[in-house]
């Protein structure tokens, strides 16, 4: 085609085309997806949502009874999987590495990188056990970082329903350590 002709063409410009793709990318993990769907529901007066896409099924219904049910497997194979290779593409890290999903507000997270200890010394009694009551400011573990023992104190009061990491385990910043309800 002549130059002028090409310019007249109604073939979409590359820029426009790029935009079409853009919509594809956004939300993070599967849980976030459910959360987002819930937000969508909350922002409207929708009472029921079914959402299905190869490998993912979500069905939400509002009202009394079970709040929502997720048809597993959420983490199952995608539609088409590329060959078995290490793939660098992105994903949100789960809120609670090493643990089952937990309502985010109830965890107490590690304030630093280091090694988690449940007691002040190998012979000492653990600071807390599952089922214990915990007070604000109460030491519930020690994180060793650069040979220093750092006491970690509870930020809220309640009942320790779960201890998420093992004694002596390495923990990263912000890693959930215990659940207090």
């Amino acid at each position, binding site marked *: 085609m002549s130059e002028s002709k090409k310019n007249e063409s109604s073939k979409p410009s*590359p820029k426009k085309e790029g935009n079409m793709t853009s919509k594809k990318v956004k939300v993070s993990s599967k849980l976030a997806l459910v959360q987002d769907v819930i937000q969508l529901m909350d922002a409207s007066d929708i009472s029921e949502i079914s959402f299905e896409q190869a490998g993912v099924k979500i069905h939400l219904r509002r009202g009394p009874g079970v709040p929502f049910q997720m048809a597993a497997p959420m983490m199952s194979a995608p539609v088409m999987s590329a060959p078995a290779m290490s793939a660098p593409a992105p994903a949100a890290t789960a809120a609670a590495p090493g643990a089952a999903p937990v309502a985010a507000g109830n965890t107490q997270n590690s304030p630093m990188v280091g090694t988690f200890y449940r007691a002040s010394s190998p012979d000492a009694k653990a600071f807390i056990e599952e089922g214990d009551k915990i007070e604000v400011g109460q030491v519930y573990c020690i994180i060793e970082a650069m040979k220093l023992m750092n006491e970690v104190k509870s930020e809220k009061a309640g009942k320790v329903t779960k201890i998420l990491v093992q004694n002596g385990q390495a923990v990263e910043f912000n890693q959930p350590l215990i659940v207090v309800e």
Partner: protein
Amino acid sequence: MFKKILIANRGEIALRIIRACKEMSIKTVAVYSTADADSLHVHLADESVCIGRGPSKESYLNIPALISAAEITDAEAIHPGYGFLAENAHFAEVCASCQIKFIGPKPEVMRLMGDKVQAIGMAKKAGTPTTPGSDGPVKDEKQALEVAKRIKYPVIIKASAGGGGRGMRVAHTDLSLAQAFQTCRAEAEAAFGNPEVYIEKYVEDPRHIEVQIMGDEYGNVAHLGERDCTIQRSHQKLIEEAPSGVLTPKQRKAVGKYALRLAKEVKYSSAGTIEFLLNKEGEFYFMEMNTRVQVEHPVTEQIMGVDIIKEQIRVAAGEKLSIPKTEMEPRGHAIECRINAENPDDNFRPSPGTITTYHVPGGPGVRVDTHLYQGYKVPPYYDSMLAKIIVHAPNRNEAINRMIRALDELVVEGVHTTAAFLRGILASETFRSGKYSTHYVDDMRKKKEKAADKESKK
């Protein structure tokens, strides 16, 4: 220099040529079939012309449509890429008769070297070693048996018009020869419209070594060293490297000299490749010549610092060869992997579809030649190659490590690919050792199938 070039091809090679033209300030015309309207070469070219429907015969092989497209866009030259019409002497002649420069060798040289029997004749004339054989077409079974007696079994029957592993049969005895001869003729007739066959000594466990040739229209010819394409599946190249990991300096010099002799004999212009088999005794045998740029040309470009496509364009425009005629010193080692849209777990069945996620490897020493983008639909009409990943490193070991690293970074989702399969070959001890023949991949697969069979019978 040309002001405008039409690229009579699609896919990564069309992009490769457009990139060269852009860097040379030459305008480009892309042609495309209706199935390729969204293809990257259409978007990157300065102009584009739809030349027909999806099937190649109606578009990329449609000579009148291509010539018309060149004429209405005032393109002065056509680059045929590889495949499609790249080795079609008739197309080159039509271009010439329409005052369009065909970027490739002269049609008579294409025709001469495209005919296996004539090409072998030329090689002999040039003093390039050839496999012992019939020295021309074999007309009947009787003659076939005589030839086999003279050169000794195993022998291979090849279609004169064949190539790329098609139209070949191996025979180990008089009995199997008689049958193979008839089958091969029938197949050649069906596949190429020409039943002519010839017979050669069958080289057992060979390596595939080829030499990149570049010539201009003033009789200057140079070679750019060898490539090793021994890793093949059913005669299809999978992984190519330059230089070869196994040649001695003496062998390297020898094969370069053999190739150069033949290229000079036919006064070769443009880019071409002369393929050899290397037997276990270290002897080379001329196999065939490809009178076009080759898929695996980048590995040579990487180690030689030469842009083969630009050089093709320059010599087609009447410039003299810019490559020194003295032997060039390679720098480092380059490997190419062809990533195909095929399912290795389903006998490499082509896997067209939409690329849903796409991420290319990057960083030092990694080159990617591809027409892919996220959202691209791989059409079912054409060959299944999606991308070529080329790595360059100081030595073969580092190049292998780099390729594995690059393949690990690659993400192509939505279609099956051969990436993981190739990674397996690269990571194997055998590949690293360099001790394998062109049968390696096929043998490995057969072994695995057998093992799987045994397993399932338990």
